[in-house]
């Protein structure tokens, strides 16, 4: 995926692209965004991953069918398809791992707030809940159980310090604008704003960039 692909996506003729190509683009975009944003993004809800899984299965079956063929021509095609499949699988794997890493790091944060909780896919939710339970059990059996009862919680907010660690939403991200828009950013000394043009690449705090990305006028690169 390069710039041309992205430009084509904002093109009015976008709909002429077949669905499978669009899914691949959606996957690539989700992957890029997930890897560069500091917090967990929404799980794609339109059945993207069901379709992707289906397609991977189809390709594997196809490869198995073709393996029996000894024709050199099919052999070449086979290698191309296999390489493509490996890359496709890598995208999915890397995407899922990036999400799991974020979930593992701030499990309680993602579990304790219903709005953020909705970003997880059902399997991820099950995984996170179970993982947290395991950790808590581990703490309990290692030392917490012999603590005085008022100190056994893992979500104290005493002394204005919450025990639940949250991702730093002020880290910088690079975004590419997909349309002309006004970009506003908070700075350490003073706030700044600029008129952005289509295709501009801007670096700014994730907390400022988030609303642009959510409304679709920008994407993370």
């Amino acid at each position: 995926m390069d710039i041309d692909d992205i430009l084509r996506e904002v093109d009015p003729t976008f709909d002429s692209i077949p669905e499978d190509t669009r899914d691949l683009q959606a996957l690539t975009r989700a992957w890029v965004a997930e890897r560069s944003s500091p917090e967990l993004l929404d799980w794609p809800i339109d059945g993207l991953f069901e379709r992707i899984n289906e397609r991977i299965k189809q390709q594997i079956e196809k490869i198995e069918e073709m393996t029996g063929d000894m024709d050199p021509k099919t052999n070449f095609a086979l290698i191309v398809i296999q390489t493509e499949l490996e890359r496709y699988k890598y995208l999915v794997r890397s995407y899922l791992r990036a999400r799991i890493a974020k979930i593992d790091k701030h499990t309680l944060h993602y579990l304790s707030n219903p709005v953020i909780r909705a970003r997880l896919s059902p399997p991820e939710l099950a995984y996170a809940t179970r993982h947290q339970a395991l950790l808590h059990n581990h703490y309990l059996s290692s030392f917490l159980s012999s603590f005085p009862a008022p100190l056994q919680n893992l979500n104290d907010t005493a002394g204005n310090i919450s025990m639940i660690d949250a991702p730093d939403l002020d880290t910088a991200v690079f975004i590419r604008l997909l349309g002309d828009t006004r970009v506003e950013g908070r700075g350490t000394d003073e706030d700044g704003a600029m008129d952005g043009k289509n295709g501009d690449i801007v670096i700014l705090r994730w907390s400022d960039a988030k609303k642009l990305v959510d409304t679709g006028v920008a994407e993370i690169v």
Partner: protein
Amino acid sequence: MYGDLGNKLVQHAKRTQNLSHLPPYQTELVRAVTREVRDLDKDVADLLEPFQGSFNPANDQATACTLLVNHLSMRRNKRCLLAYHRTRADRLEELVWKGYDVVDLAGQQVRDGQGGFNGPPGMATGNGGTSSLSPQEEDYVRQYSDLLAAYKGQWTDIDLTGSLEPPRDLFIDVRVLKDAGEIQTEYGAITLTKNSQFYVRQGDVERLIAQGYLQKLS
């Protein structure tokens, strides 16, 4: 008293982050810190006892200060303990993801007397004979492996624990470091004998590379 031991634990945790292997579990320290918390809690209870629940900090500032320090130390100790255990748990999870048999490895590490996790020799556990994991940690690892296997099961075609390097070539050269017996590939069976070299499909041998049977040649 008042958090000295907790500090030691944090230093251990910090050190663990930069080590290639997992140092032995500090059972004694953990126990001592926990004991300290219990003692402090008892002190607090003793201090409050004569007031019968009607303690007013403004009337007795010295006691109020003692109570505050005790409370803060308890919380701090708890944080230290949590940090220590979390660091180790993270490390263990990492190993589980990489597909090592952690419990086995920990035992082996002690027997070999050298860093089992590719660590430099001689840096291993000081108190030979015991595993560097606490029994609770072994339990945790076992349960986490199950959890991971369950999650992986939903993505059977992807092989979640596979390499996170972007694939470049379908086929790679590998050298066999340890006898691994015969493996089945789409192109027939290959017998992996030590020191031989093969040109194979990466997906077929990824597991074996991770386990140290094969070495990838670039």
